[in-house]
C-alpha cells in the first residue's frame, strides 16, 4: 500500500512537470493568439460564422468552442454564430457510412461554409481524420482557417502555414496536455474577439494576416495605409476583386456600396470609402 502511494505521488509530480513547458510555450504564443482573434473579429464583423471540427476528444472541444461563442459565459456579451460539425451523430455517421470517415467534415463545410466564415479545426494525435481535407475545402471557399494542432503533428502543410492562415501549436505530443492547451487557447480567442468587436482601435494595427495573403508576400491592400483601387468583380459574402495597379487582390467591400468600375479606398483589406465610379 505504501509502495502504491509512492507510485501515485511520483505520477502526480511527473504529470505536473510534463505540463510546465507547454504551459510556458502558450504564454510565449500570446501574440499568435491575438493575431488569430483579430482576423476572427474581422470575419464576425462581416457576418461570418464560426464552424468548428475535430475528432475524438477534439470533437468535444469543437462543441465547447461553439457554445462559448453562441452562449457567452459573461452576461451582456453578444451571441456570435458558431456551430460544431462534430456533434450531430446522424450527420457524422451518415457521411462516414456513405462517403467514408475522411469526408465527414469537408462534406459539411462544402454544404454549409460561406466565404466570410471561419473554420477552426483541431488536429491532435494524428487522429485528425478529415481535418486536413476540411481545411482545404474551407480555404477553397475563402474562409479564414485556423488550426489548433499538437506538438507531434506529422503533416507539415498544417504546421508551415501553407494550408491554413493561423497555426496554434500546443507544443506537446501528449494528446491530453495538447487538449488542455487548446482549451485555454480557445477561451482566450473568445475573449479577444469580443475585445476587438467592442473596441475596433486595435484592428487598425499592423501585422494582421488577412485571408489569402502569404505572410511574407507584399500585399498592397493589407498594408497599414489606405490605398485607392479599382473594383473589377463583386463576389459573394461582401468581397470583391480589385485591381491595385500592381495586380489583382480580394478585399472586403462589406462596409460600402461598391459597384464594378468604382474606385474605392482600401485599408487593411477592408474597403472604407467609394472615391468615384468608372475610374481609368
Amino acid at each position: 500500500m505504501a509502495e502504491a502511494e509512492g507510485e501515485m505521488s511520483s505520477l502526480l509530480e511527473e504529470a505536473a512537470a510534463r505540463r510546465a513547458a507547454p504551459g510556458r510555450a502558450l504564454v510565449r504564443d500570446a501574440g499568435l493568439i491575438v493575431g488569430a482573434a483579430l482576423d476572427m473579429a474581422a470575419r464576425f464583423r462581416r457576418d461570418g460564422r464560426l464552424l468548428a471540427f475535430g475528432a475524438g476528444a477534439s470533437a468535444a472541444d469543437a462543441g465547447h468552442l461553439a457554445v462559448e461563442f453562441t452562449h457567452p459565459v459573461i452576461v451582456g456579451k453578444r451571441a456570435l454564430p458558431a456551430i460544431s460539425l462534430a456533434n450531430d451523430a446522424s450527420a457524422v455517421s451518415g457521411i462516414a457510412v456513405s462517403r467514408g470517415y475522411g469526408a465527414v467534415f469537408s462534406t459539411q463545410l462544402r454544404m454549409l461554409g460561406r466565404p466570410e466564415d471561419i473554420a477552426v479545426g483541431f488536429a491532435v494525435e494524428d487522429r485528425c481524420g478529415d481535418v486536413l481535407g476540411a481545411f482545404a475545402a474551407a480555404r477553397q471557399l475563402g474562409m479564414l482557417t485556423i488550426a489548433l494542432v499538437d506538438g507531434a503533428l506529422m503533416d507539415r502543410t498544417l504546421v508551415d502555414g501553407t494550408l491554413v492562415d493561423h497555426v496554434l501549436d500546443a507544443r506537446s505530443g501528449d494528446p491530453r496536455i495538447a487538449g488542455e492547451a487548446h482549451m485555454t487557447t480557445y477561451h482566450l480567442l473568445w475573449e479577444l474577439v469580443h475585445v476587438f468587436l467592442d473596441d475596433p482601435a486595435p484592428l487598425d494595427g499592423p501585422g494582421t494576416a488577412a485571408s489569402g495573403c502569404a505572410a511574407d508576400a507584399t500585399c498592397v491592400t493589407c498594408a497599414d495605409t489606405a490605398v485607392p483601387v479599382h473594383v473589377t468583380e463583386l463576389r459573394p459574402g461582401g468581397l470583391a476583386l480589385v485591381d491595385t495597379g500592381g495586380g489583382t487582390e480580394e478585399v472586403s467591400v462589406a462596409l460600402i456600396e461598391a459597384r464594378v468600375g468604382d474606385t474605392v479606398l482600401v485599408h487593411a483589406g477592408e474597403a472604407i470609402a467609394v472615391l468615384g465610379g468608372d475610374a481609368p
Partner: protein
Amino acid sequence: MTGALYPFAAAGGDTTREELVMSTAAKAAESVELRLRVLERLGPSLAACARAMATAFRAGGTLLAFGNGGSSTDAQSVAQLFLTPGRGGRRLPAISLTGDSALLTALANDVHFDVVFARQLTALGRRGDIALALSTSGGSANVLRGLEAARRAGLVTVGFAGSGGGRMAAERLADHLFVVPSSSVHRIQEAQATLCHVLWELVHQALAGAEAGGVQAGGEEASDGGLGAGGVGADGVGAGGA
C-alpha cells in the same frame, strides 16, 4: 463591457495590440500556474479517488459523466478518454449523459431541466457505478440533483466545482470533491480538464497495481493502438472539386 475582460481597454479606448498581447500572456500564465497548483494541492485526494474508481471498474462499474454547457462537452471528453483512450490505453466502460438530445429535450420539455441528469442516473446507474459531475459554480440544480440521485442509487460520486465549491461543497454532495479556487469560469474549466486527465492516469496506475497484486481486472485491453488516423480520402488535400 470590455472592462470585465480587459479593464484597461475600457479606460482609454485606445488599447494597443501590445497591451492585449501582454494581457493574453498573463492569462495563459495564470492558467498553467493554476493547473500546477491544483495538482499539488488536490493530488492526494485525486489519488484516493482514483483508487475508489479503480475498485469500481474492477467490479464491473461504468463511469457516467455529466455537466452543463462547456462542462457538458468536457464530460463527453472524459467519457471518451476512458472508453477509447487510443495508443496503449486500456478501454473502460464510460458514458456521457450529455450527448443524447432525445433524452435531454424530452426530460426538459416534459418534466424540468433540473431532472435531465437525475432521471438518467436513476435509470442507468447501478450500485458500484461512478457518477462524475462537472460544474464551475458547484451550484447547478440539475448537476446537484444528479449527484443526489447517484448517491441514492449507490454510485461512487465524484464532483468537480470551482470558486468556493457552491452547494456541491456546502452540502457534501460528492464522495470525492475537487474545488478549483478561481473566480474565472474559463480558468476553472481548464484546471478541471487537467485534473480529469491526471485522474484518468491515476486510475490506470491503480488498476495496474491491483493486477500486479493478483486481482483480476475489469475492462478491455486495447490492442489496436488507438483508433488510427481516419485517413484523407477522395475529399483530401488537393482533391480540388467542390
